[in-house]
């Protein structure tokens, strides 16, 4: 009797301790600001085989394992594609400078960032063909975790992050990502308080007065893929600014009220959320809620970030943006019925319609921004030629540091019908989950490269690179701009 009471007391004590001690991993404070260190594009080594002249960025969308597998297939195709740049043989994969990813795509992006070629050895068995959902449920039904989950400071997402940390990312942190150099991996999440995009880079963590180097990559991936309702948010602490902090260069004077309609103003508003220290905590969920394609981080880099500075410095010759979009679409049955859809269908549509349209607009915005630059370059050339012809004594017009030759290559399931023997509906009906069977994974790995090679933009990129390598003029079928609209 006495023993039972002692046991019960000991058990209750253990449970209380577990509840009391269970707390999510807190990001550490940064005491001294250093713009030349931390996980940011400019601190990363380009690597021996990477040139700035061919500047390649990848965008991996959300979509669970489906998105991770489609991205993997593209990485494998880039690995197998040998090109010549500046007289040197290399692989297209070695030329990748940045990856912006969301949700399921973040698993592939982070794994490659951390483990490089190992991606092609074990990612398939470690993640793609694994029942991650089952593993998450197992940990959820472990009585030890029930007590931990009773704490307000420990949620289902923390269990998921622990699983990813131990089983997929080998407890790696951002310091390891930084040591590996390019590509710069931007793992995107959504700040629930500000309704805005957040990415796990030192620029964001500087505004939080925090270090990113010792933060687990698995937690960033968990935040990026924290699907609402099933998982809970990842939280970060917002500390006082580190000594000597200076905001990014574009921030100064950006919040001038008359400029409120500009993207720069909007970006500054986003940063100011973290500079406002009354916002003591940041709660993050799936990156897909604010941008399900990862395009906004690239647009920011193009407008005022590391891509913009390199364009103005004249170091980028070909700017290649590859969008891997694993978006699905169920067959429209609603329009065939007289009875209006029920609550569940309406809820599902409410969650996805805005996201899908925003993703479409984000890629359109990328295309238009790059095409506008091509048009300006063409206008300037025509103007200079007319001046030379009709007014040869006039001073030459001032030019850009260098013309850029942009490419936007989008891989999605819309184009599956162009691939012989493939059924588009098979891919469009694939579920968004962390559990696909081997056949589904195999077909996704197989279709990605075919879809990429079938795009006229990719075809032109390869033709232009081949012609350059052979010292031939640019192919007539691929004039500048054909990498955008062809």
């Amino acid at each position, binding site marked *: 009797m006495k023993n039972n009471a002692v046991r019960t007391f000991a058990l209750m004590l253990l449970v209380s301790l577990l509840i009391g001690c269970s707390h999510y991993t807190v990001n550490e404070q940064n005491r001294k600001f250093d713009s030349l260190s931390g996980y940011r594009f400019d601190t990363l080594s380009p690597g021996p085989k990477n040139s700035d002249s061919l500047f390649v960025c990848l965008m991996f969308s959300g979509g669970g394992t489906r998105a991770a597998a489609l991205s993997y297939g593209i990485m494998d195709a880039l690995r197998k594609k040998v090109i010549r740049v500046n007289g040197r043989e290399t692989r297209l994969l070695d030329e990748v400078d940045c990856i912006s990813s969301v949700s399921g795509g973040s698993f592939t992006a982070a794994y490659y960032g951390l483990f490089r070629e190992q991606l092609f050895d074990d990612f398939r068995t470690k993640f793609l063909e694994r029942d991650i959902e089952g593993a998450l449920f197992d940990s959820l039904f472990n009585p030890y975790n029930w007590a931990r989950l009773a704490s307000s400071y420990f949620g289902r997402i923390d269990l998921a992050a622990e699983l990813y940390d131990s089983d997929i990312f080998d407890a790696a942190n951002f310091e390891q990502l930084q040591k590996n150099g390019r590509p710069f991996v931007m793992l995107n999440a959504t700040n629930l308080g500000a309704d805005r995009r957040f990415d796990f880079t030192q620029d964001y963590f500087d505004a939080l007065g925090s270090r990113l180097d010792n933060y687990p990559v698995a937690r960033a991936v968990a935040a990026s893929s924290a699907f609402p309702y099933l998982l809970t948010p990842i939280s970060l602490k917002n500390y006082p600014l580190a000594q000597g902090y*200076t905001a990014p*260069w*574009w921030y*100064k*004077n*950006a919040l*001038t009220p008359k*400029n409120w309609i*500009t*993207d*720069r*103003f909007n970006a500054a508003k986003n940063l100011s959320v973290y500079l406002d220290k009354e916002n003591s905590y940041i709660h993050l969920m799936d990156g897909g809620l604010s941008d399900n394609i990862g395009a906004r981080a690239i647009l920011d880099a193009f*407008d*005022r970030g590391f891509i*913009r*500075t390199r*364009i*103005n*410095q*004249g170091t980028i010759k070909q700017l290649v943006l590859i969008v891997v979009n694993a978006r699905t679409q169920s067959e429209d049955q609603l329009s065939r019925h007289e009875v209006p859809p029920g609550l569940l269908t309406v809820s599902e549509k409410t969650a996805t319609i805005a996201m899908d349209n925003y993703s479409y607009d984000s890629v359109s915005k990328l295309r238009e*921004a790059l095409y*506008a*630059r091509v048009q*300006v370059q063409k*206008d*300037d050339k025509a*103007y200079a030629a007319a001046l030379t012809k009709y007014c040869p004594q006039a001073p030459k*017009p*001032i*030019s*850009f*540091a260098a013309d850029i030759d942009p490419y936007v290559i989008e891989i999605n399931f819309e184009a599956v019908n162009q691939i012989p023997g493939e059924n588009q509906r098979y891919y469009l009906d694939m579920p968004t989950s962390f559990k696909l069977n081997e056949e589904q994974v195999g077909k996704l790995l197989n279709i990605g490269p075919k879809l990429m090679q079938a795009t006229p933009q990719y075809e032109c990129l390869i033709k232009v690179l081949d012609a350059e390598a052979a010292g031939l003029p640019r192919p007539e079928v691929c004039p500048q701009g054909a990498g955008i609209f062809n």
Partner: protein
Amino acid sequence: MAKEYLVVSFPRTRRVLINGQFSGTTNIILELEDGQYEVTLGPPKNFTPEKYDIDLHGTSSMNPMIVEFKVLKL
């Protein structure tokens, strides 16, 4: 968002700093977002004026805003 165009004129090729960030060189067209910036040159400090505070808008690549630095005679 539409871009704006800036030329920083100087008799020599020199780094251009926009809000303290190396953003290209002198005597070429720089493409930036609309708005206010502080423009100066990289070292050596043999130029005048020390900086320009500009409000960049309403430009085109054929009609960029031009700010001119001169060599400071010591």
